[in-house]
Structure formats: C-alpha cells, structure tokens
C-alpha cells in the first residue's frame, strides 16, 4: 500500500477531475477533437468516429450503413448513437457518453486492482505482493494517461471495447463468471479480437469462483462459459440482423479485419507488409499473421496458468502490437493493466529503455507522418520505421513484464536465488 487511504471524497475527486479535464478540452479547444479524430494513430478504419458518422447518416436515411464500404463497425453502435442528439447541433451529449465510458473503464480497473488478484491468485501468492498501488492510483494512471485522453477526445469507438474487456476482467475477479462471459461477448462483438482472451479469462473466472456455488469440474466450467459466450454472441448477431436487415454486416465488419481490405496506415505492422505483398501470397500471409497473433494465447495461458490475469495482460500487450488495426487506445489499455504489477517492477530490467523508446516514438510518429503525407519530403518508410520503433518499445515492455513475473514465480521455488544475477538459457 502506498498509504493512500481511499475515501469517498477522493474517489469523487478523481472521477470529477478526469471528467472536467476532458470537458475543458472539449469546450476550450473545439478544433482539437476533430483534429484527433483524423489522426491515423487514434482512428483506424475499424474504430474511426468519422466513419461512424458516415454509417450513422446512411442508417438514419434508411440506406444500409455498409453501402459505400466506409463503415466497418458493429451495427448496434448505430441505434445507440442515433438516440443521442445530433453531433453537429449538440455535441455535448456525445462528449458526455465518451467521458462516461472512460469513467466506467476506470471503475472496473479500480475493482481489479482492489481485488489483489495481481499479487495473489488462487494458485500463486507473490512474496512481494505487499508493495502495490491502490485502486485510486491505478485508476488515476489510466484516466490521466495521455493516450487514454487522446483516444477519448478522438472519440474512437475502441473505448467501448476497452470498457467491455475491463469489465469482463473485473467481473471475473469478483467471482461472477456469467457477467464476465457476457462482457467479453460484447467486446468480441464490437471488435472480434477479444475472443482470443477467452481461454485465460475462463481460467481466471474458474479460479475466482465463489466457494459456495463453484463448479468443480474444469471442462464442465469451460463448456458452460463457451456456450454462454456463443449464446450471447448469437443473440447480438440476431439483434444486428434485425437492426440492419441483412447479414451484410458480417463481411463488412469482421471480414475487413480478417482480410485487411482497408490498407489505411496505422501504428501497427500489417498495413505496410500487405502493401508490398505479392497478390498471390496475400491470403497465405493474412492467415500467417492471424495465426501468429493467436498462437500466443495457448502458450501464455499454459505457461502462466497460475496467474491468469498476467496472461490476460500480456495478451492485451501482444494485441496492441500485432493486431491488424491497432491504435494508441490498445496501448493505453495495456498500459492501464501494467501498473497492477507494481510489485514486480523491481525485477524488470529495461523499464528505462522501453519507456524512453515509447516516448520517443510518440513524439516522432506524428512528425514523420506529417513529413510523409503533408510535407511530401518523406515517404511511407518514414512512418513505418517509427511504427516499428513504437512496437519495439511495446514488445520490450511485454517481454520485460513476462520476465519479471516468471522470475517472481521462480524465486518462490528457489528462495536461495533471490537477488542473484541469473542467466537465461
């Protein structure tokens, strides 16, 4: 404990502070949200607010929102946003919605932090668990992270996915497997890739069941969870079908993520590769990239079976690097989870390097994009090089966290090695 005593007053202060910060930026700098909406680092083809407005316009004029090939997001976002007053006349309601989503994510994170799952899970208790940050600090780190703020201002729809994932984890650690499965189904419905989080999440829920009504058999528990997710997803798809009137949304939302048909640049690694790809090998390498992304799930879940939350965190970090359309909001989600492992920070070896690399890329990324697109004095390689650096920084962080967690586990087995130099072989 950092000694920060959590009182209702402090909680309110944090939430109000975060909300006021966002509202002030929205009102005092009215041009900034639209500027951020156009940035490729924030808005990807599958999360862009601009494209959402296009889809909303078509939807409100009784045209299929997927006509024109601009809108690639989940259909149920449309009725939600058409309930709000028009963004051009009363943008404040949209702002309030995004702020509320951010605060909800923060409260979920707070619950995860307070559960202490990061330090002591069902199968493993870290000797260092006493040294941790309170939920307040972790929620504050999330809410005042510039990446989170920028994502909120850019009104990227990835905030809904972030919120759903955090709630799924929070439900799982608080012993509500059903709620967790419903939340992860929503996240998967919105962005598809969170479905890969299912194995570690099922393990986490299994470990954290309330002892009173626990299901002892692991296969039975997994089967119930999987069928819950399948049922919720089926209901959501059926609802989407009713809303849009056709199954066209499946290829337009998930198909685009699977086939990467929109090659707008982003901070990820896929777009440049597939611009250069020979057409005849395109489908093969699409499959390779997706398999690469999903192959980590099995390995990490098995290796860190004793701490499923670590597996979830690391997989989120891997998503932020290897997803087809990553943005800084994925990095923000990963960086929100990292402070939960305050107790293993002393074991990390490259904190300075990875922080410096991420900050370096954050400063130079927009500059290189400007040189390429606006000034014309650079080319695509400039921007791609800086995204490589950005992802290098993130992979360093992922590897370092993995190393620290494993070292923590290992020191329990080998108490005599605490504090000694070790060599990885």
């Amino acid at each position, binding site marked *: 404990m950092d000694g920060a005593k959590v009182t209702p007053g402090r909680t309110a202060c944090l939430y109000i502070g975060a909300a006021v910060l966002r509202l002030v930026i929205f009102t005092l700098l009215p041009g900034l949200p639209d500027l951020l909406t156009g940035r490729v680092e924030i808005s990807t083809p599958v999360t862009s607010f601009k494209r959402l407005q296009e889809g909303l316009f078509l939807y409100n004029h009784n045209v299929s929102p997927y006509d024109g090939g601009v809108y690639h997001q989940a259909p149920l976002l449309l009725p939600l946003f058409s309930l709000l007053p028009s963004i051009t006349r009363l943008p404040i309601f949209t702002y309030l919605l995004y702020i509320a989503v951010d605060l909800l994510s923060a409260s979920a994170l707070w619950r995860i932090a307070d559960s202490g799952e990061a330090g002591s899970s069902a199968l493993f208790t870290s000797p260092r668990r006493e040294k941790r940050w309170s939920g307040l600090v972790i929620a504050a780190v999330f809410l005042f992270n510039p990446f989170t703020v920028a994502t909120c201002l850019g009104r990227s729809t990835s905030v809904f996915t972030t919120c759903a994932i955090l709630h799924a984890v929070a439900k799982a650690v608080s012993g509500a497997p059903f709620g967790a499965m419903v939340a992860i189904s929503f996240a998967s419905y919105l962005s598809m890739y969170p479905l890969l989080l299912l194995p570690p999440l099922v393990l986490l829920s299994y470990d954290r069941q309330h002892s009173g009504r626990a299901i002892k058999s692991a296969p039975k528990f997994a089967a119930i969870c999987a069928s819950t997710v399948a049922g919720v997803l089926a209901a959501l798809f059926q609802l989407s079908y009713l809303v849009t009137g056709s199954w066209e949304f499946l290829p337009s939302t998930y198909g685009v993520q699977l086939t990467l048909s929109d090659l707008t640049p982003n901070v990820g690694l896929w777009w440049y590769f597939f611009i250069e790809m*020979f*057409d*005849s*090998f395109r*489908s*093969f*390498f699409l*499959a*390779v990239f997706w*398999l*690469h992304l*999903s*192959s980590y799930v*099995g*390995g990490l879940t*098995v*290796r860190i*079976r004793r701490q499923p939350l670590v597996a979830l965190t690391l997989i989120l970090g891997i998503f932020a690097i290897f997803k087809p359309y990553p943005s800084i909001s994925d990095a923000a989600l990963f960086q929100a989870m990292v402070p939960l492992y305050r107790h293993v920070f002393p074991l990390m070896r490259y904190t300075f390097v990875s922080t410096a690399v991420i900050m370096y890329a954050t400063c130079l990324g927009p500059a290189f994009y400007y040189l390429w697109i606006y000034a014309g004095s650079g080319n695509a390689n400039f921007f791609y090089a800086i995204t490589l650096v950005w992802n290098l920084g993130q992979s360093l962080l992922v590897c370092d966290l*993995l*190393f620290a967690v*494993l*070292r923590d586990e*290992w020191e329990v*087995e*080998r108490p*005599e090695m605490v504090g000694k130099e*070790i*060599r*990885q*072989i």
Partner: protein
Amino acid sequence: MSIQQPPDNGAGHFESPAVTSDSVTANSKDGAQVKKQPPPEKASDVRRRSHIILSFWLIILLLGLPIWWKTTTIYRADLPLQEMLDWSDGKACRPVFPLRISIQANSLQEQEAQNLLRLTQHALDDLNDFSGHHLRLQLAPPSATEHHNRESVLTIRLVPGDATTAKFDPHEPILDITYPSNAIPSPTSSSSPLATYVAGQLRSTFAEEQATISYLLSTNSIPSDHRPQGLSSDISDSLSKRTSRSLKYAPTYHLTFSLFTSGPLPSSWDIDGAIGEYMKPVLDVLSPIHNFTIDTQVQLYATPGVQNQVLNKEDLSSFINAAEWPLSPSIGGAPTVNFIVFVGDQTIAAPAQSSEEDGAPEPSSHSWMMPQWGTVYLLPLPNDTSHLSVEALKQPLLTFTSHLLSLTGTPQSGSLPLRLSTLSRIRSADLLLRASSTLGSLARLSLALPSISIPSRVADGVSKTMHHLRLACETLGGPEGLAHARIAEAEAERAFFEKSMVGQLYFPDEHKIAVYLPLLGPVAVPLVMGLLNELKAWVKRRKEAAAVGRGKKME
C-alpha cells in the same frame, strides 16, 4: 525463466511427484556442495513445457498447414490442349469456301442450259488449282426473276445479244453476259467458246479473293498439303503490301472527320448531312463486319506540317501536323480512322513517274491516303466561303468512302456488292485463323509454364471459342460464319489476355524462398529447435527409464 538441464542423477525422480519434494531438499544440499549444478526440473515443469510446445505445433499442424495448402496451390483449369493445338495447326478445320453461282438463262431451253452449265463447270474445274476455294454452278429456276438468289454469291444472267460481252450490275451481285445466238453449244459438243468465256470471267472475278485467301492461309500455320500452290511471288508481295496498308481488324472503328482551315473561314460545315448522304450507305453494308462510331471537329488557323505551295510526294507524309492538330490516336479502345479536309491553297505536284506499283497509296490531285491511318483531302475554296454545304463536301466524302473501303481491306476488283461479300469471306477466314492461332498460343503457354494459374474463366472462354470456331468452320462463307468467327476471336482474345493470368507471371521456386524465408524463417527456428530439444529429452528419459527398469530387474 531459466531452462535448466536436469542432471543425470535426477532422472529417477520423475516417477512420482511425491519423490520430487524429497529431491528438492536433497538437491539443495547438493547445490551447496557443487556450486554450478542447478537443481533438477520438476516433473510438472517438464510437462508444462511439452504442453506449450505442443500448443504451438498444434496450431501449425491443424491450422497452418491446411491454410498454406489451400491458399498457395495454383488453380489450373483443364484445357483441351490437344484440340487447341489442332486448331492452331489447321488440323481441326479445313477452310473451304463453297461458292454457289447461279446461272439464269431464261431464253435457253432447259436442256441447252444444263449442257452449258456442265461445260462451264468443266472449264472452271480445269482452271482451278485451289481446293479450298470452290466455285459451284447451279441453274436458277427460270421463274426466279430480277432478284438474285440469297443462297448464291453471284448470279449470271445470260441474255442473247450481238456479241459476247460481260457487265456487272452496279447494285446487285449480278453479272450480265450477252452472247450471240450461234454461241449456244450443241448438246454433243465437248467444248464451247461461250462456256470458256463464262469460266474465264468467273475466274478473273474471283481471282483476287482466291489469291487473298491463299495468302492468308499461307501466312498462317496451315499444313502444306492443304496449302494452295503456285502463289506467285509478285502477287503475294502486292497482297502483303495491301494487308499492311489496311487497318488491323477490329469489331469497331472510330471515324474522325476533321475540318482544318488555314484561315478564319470556313467555320462551319454540314458534315452530318454529307455523311448521311454519301457515306451512310457504305457504312450500312459494312455493318455486319464492323461497327462504326463517328465524331467530327473543326479547327481554324491550322498550320500544316509542310508549308510548301506545291506538295511533293515526300511532303505528303509530313503534312499532318501531329504536334498541333488534335488527332487522338484512338478513342475508347477502338482504332481511329482519320478523315481530314484541309481548306487551303496548296496543291499536289503531279506524280513524276506514273509507274506506281499496284497497291501503293496513289495520290490523286486532291487527296492521298495514309496507310492504317486515314485520308487527307485538300479542298481549294474561294476565300469568302463561310459554310461548307453538303454539295461542296460531296467529292471529299466520296473519296473518303472509297479510301475507307481499302483501309478496311476490301478487294479492289469487281462491283461493290461483290467486293463487300468478298470482304466478309476474307474477314471470316482471317478471324478464324487468328482465333485458332490464339488458341494455339494459349495451349503452348500453359504447356511451357507449368506454374501459371489458369482460372475457370479461361477454360470457359476456350470452350466457347472452340464451339464458335466449329460453327464458323461449318458455315464458312455465309453471314453466320462471320458472326461465329467474330465471337470466337473475341472470346479467344479474352481468354488469352485474362488479367489474373497475366498478373501472376511465372514465379520460380527460388523466388518462393525469398517470399517465405524472411518471415517464416525466424519464426520457425525457435519452434523447430524447441521441438527437437523436447524430442531428445523424451528419448533420453525413455532410455533412462528402461535402464532403471533393467536395474530393478537385475536386483
């Protein structure tokens, strides 16, 4: 995360977890004695590592390999290669043009007419040396009057007269032959001057067509036994010159009529009316063979490429001011034929030597034709003419029409209807041969490049082409033959220039290494090494377990 090699003495402890806890304490003592020796791995750790490696390899084997197989196999539709090669070698179709010629002899007795017919046919067969091009005479029923029979390409009207003369009807494919009354062969005679005369007329009428078709066949890969003999070199020279002058066949030609004036006047012309009056009839009769699209333009103060007052033969080729005159090379994919009326005071010098070879562009005093390009007509006008009427455009348009016929490759002798029907036969033969040779090229291409993909669309196109080629071959000489040949040629071209085939050029295997290795190599190294290590450790454990088992038995 250190991966520790289990020391040899620890092997016995993998039998049960219960023993393992003992071994930890035992080894901590060992560790104190021998600094460098790490403790043995726990059985659960070993099992976990195998599971991790297994999880990666399961994804590779169950998902990766099938996807690799599915996405990188090249689809090759089955093509009837042998049949395609047969077509291109001319084995599948013997181009035969059976031409029916009906003889109308209303003033003759049935018996006499039959006799004359027989004699003429004999004379024709004696003259003919090319089996592919066959003239067959038939007697028209006497009742059939003026209108010529649709079945036959030419009708000969035999009319009694003073002397033996022959004259073509200008509007119908009819040859009027008059004969003196004493020229009727007697039923017993084996030869008759009239029959020989008719045969000679027919022979000379179709000589050009015959020569052209033989030339076409000889330039394509038709087997030599089928090829006509005795095509003299000067005829074939003139034919090749004519072929090079006429435009390449296209289903659509674009005609551009341009009025260029050296001064401010005339600034308007009634080209629409003039085309309708003088050119439309010819375009209509050409319409089964070609479609035409037309546009017109006027440009004032146009400067020709040559400023001389009198244009020599050498000047004509550079007269067109390609840099400044807006003459686009082709509009909408169709080849463009340019017709230019130039209003100015330049004249063409009389040709110095009149011994022009046949077939070369013959400059008249006003106009000249440019091979494969179009025609220029110099129109001298009084200075104050501001509008060109239909009447003033008559001569240029008639010149353009006759040049258009030779640009499309119409033969030069005979009456117009006969020339056009000849053109349609020549074009059918030409299209048939071109479609066949395209099929052959496609077959050779797919044999030569075993790793080129052949989409099913190509197979469809090939089968459609062959279907229409067969139909065209059966109905060669008639209008359906031409229609089928056109479809066959278009389908063959589409199949040959299929985009996905052209796009995926031959991809050698060494290139595949360059595609696969940079990404998959680094990924594969840890996976393969992990698998190998795991297998090695497993074999070792098996051996040791067996040794321990033997040891126990020995005891």
